[in-house]
């Protein structure tokens, strides 16, 4: 009951937010929600023990796909968002296929190399990707009579997609499929010997999470109106890693909390200007050494402590 009320309160908060905050913050919230999709889809890969360093590249695949389809072919938004996600999922499958032979650190570095390969295609090919300068003049979204050039309508569109994507990812996490991924992480040999096709599940997790990263990319491209390969380089990837490490991947909520906290820190640290990366690096190292499970593990520790206290309380009574 409390859980449903909390969910309802959060949704209501998101729904009325644009009425309360200024346009600048509406733009920030749009980015925030896109980042939620990105971080949550990233967690799906980590549940089976794979840490990818190419995830934002798949955001780029979605972004470039929608830009090409909307700009050159004049496709409507519903078509480009679907195809953007699918393109990302397909490229994801192609990328993960050779990576299935690797694990751990090898996977991490291999995914970086293959991601860079995809990204360099955008840099090298002026047609149709626009080379290092990227693509400009990505049309804004038009659906019936609503003009999504304005921040507020766009906010609601992104809100809708965020709810949809997170709901699907949440369902996967709780399903048997989600548990199989966690089983693979816990004991790969045992998983194989009870009939789990480990390679297939790893590939599926990678591809599905690429799909959602692609959708995040579509939403980003139409908001920015222009994209270039730098948007999706390792710099952005490191920020994603920081969000996810700070939040923790132990539960579905960890990465979401990580994005929220680190974007707040980022906004608060604006006066630091070029010193900000130093702060972020410091935070990353602090979390890796002092709280490797992220804020999520802190929450479950607190919950455990509270449980113990209530248990002791009842004993005394």
């Amino acid at each position, binding site marked *: 009951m409390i859980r449903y009320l909390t969910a309802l309160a959060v949704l209501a908060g998101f729904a009325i937010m644009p009425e309360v905050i200024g346009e600048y913050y509406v733009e920030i919230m749009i980015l925030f929600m896109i980042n939620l999709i990105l971080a949550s889809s990233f967690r799906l890969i980590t549940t089976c023990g794979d840490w990818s360093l190419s995830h934002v590249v798949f955001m780029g695949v979605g972004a470039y796909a929608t830009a090409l389809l909307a700009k050159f072919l004049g496709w409507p938004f519903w078509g480009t968002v679907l195809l953007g996600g699918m393109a990302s999922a397909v490229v994801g499958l192609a990328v993960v296929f050779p990576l299935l032979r690797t694990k751990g650190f090898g996977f991490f570095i291999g995914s970086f190399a293959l991601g860079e390969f995809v990204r360099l295609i955008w840099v090298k090919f002026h047609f149709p990707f626009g080379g290092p300068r990227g693509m400009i003049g990505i049309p804004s979204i038009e659906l019936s009579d609503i003009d999504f050039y304005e921040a507020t309508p766009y906010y609601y569109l992104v809100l809708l997609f965020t709810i949809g994507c997170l709901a699907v990812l949440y369902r996967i996490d709780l399903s048997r499929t989600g548990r199989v991924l966690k089983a693979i992480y816990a*004991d790969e040999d045992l998983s194989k*010997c009870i009939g*789990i096709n480990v390679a297939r599940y790893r590939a599926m997790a990678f591809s*599905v999470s690429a799909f959602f990263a692609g959708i995040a990319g579509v939403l980003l491209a139409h908001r920015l109106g222009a994209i270039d390969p730098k948007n999706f380089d390792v710099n952005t990837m490191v920020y994603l890693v920081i969000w996810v490490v700070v939040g923790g991947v132990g539960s579905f909520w960890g990465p979401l909390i990580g994005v929220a906290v680190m974007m707040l820190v980022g906004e608060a640290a604006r006066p630091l200007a070029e010193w900000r990366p130093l702060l972020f690096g410091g935070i990353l190292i602090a979390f890796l050494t002092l709280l490797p499970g992220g804020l999520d593990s802190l929450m479950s520790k607190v919950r455990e402590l509270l449980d113990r206290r209530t248990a002791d309380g009842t004993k005394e009574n």
Partner: protein
Amino acid sequence: MAILEVKNLSKNFGGLMANRDLNLEVEEGEIRGVIGPNGAGKTTFFNVISGVYKPSGGTIKFDGTFITNLSPDKIAELGAVRTFQRVALFPNFTVLENVNIGRHLHARETLFGAVFGMSKHMEIENLEKSRKIVDSLGMTEHQDELASNLPYGLQRALNVAIALATEPRLLMLDEPVAGMNPTEKAEMTRIIRLIRDEMGMTVMLVEHDMRTVMNLCDKITVIDFGEKLAEGLPQEIRENKDVIEAYLGAEDIVA
């Protein structure tokens, strides 16, 4: 009919012949013991049969199908499932969840079904069957405990339970009573008998503990230096000169 037929099986690691020309047939409904001194190649044999290692030569036929070069998950799908010498379980899952993951081959959940909750009735059935396995192994009161919190004996029993959940026709146990105290050993012996008598599965086990092997197995195969040394009923093995010689110094052969 032989459910498992191994012909001229060899496995070498560089120059080391861990298994050499092994021949073995396991009949359906049998409890077969595979024994041998330390380093005889028993575990290698197990790893080759279950697909963890690829054999260097020879063939393995399970239930009429050649499984010689198949991967472990394919072999499990065909119905030959193994356990491990170590404690192999999913520590962050409860006992029931552990067993239920073992139902993987009978779940057949699609991604679409996962998202839209279409496998719900199938999951209820899977949970029901998992619960039955937990009950029959006498672990009912522990079913909601985290696997990592169980005592050693129960963790090993849970290993077997996970394998049972796949509903194998041939269950291969790698040292099922290793490191157990007498009470735990007796309990595991009871479980293995139950698996064959009540569940109708064929069991093959690798084991060091002579007493357990002698009083549990219908037939015993002895491996030494990677080769088959002897095969026969427990009584025959106990009296076999070669076997006694191979085990010279290991006093528990007479036990």
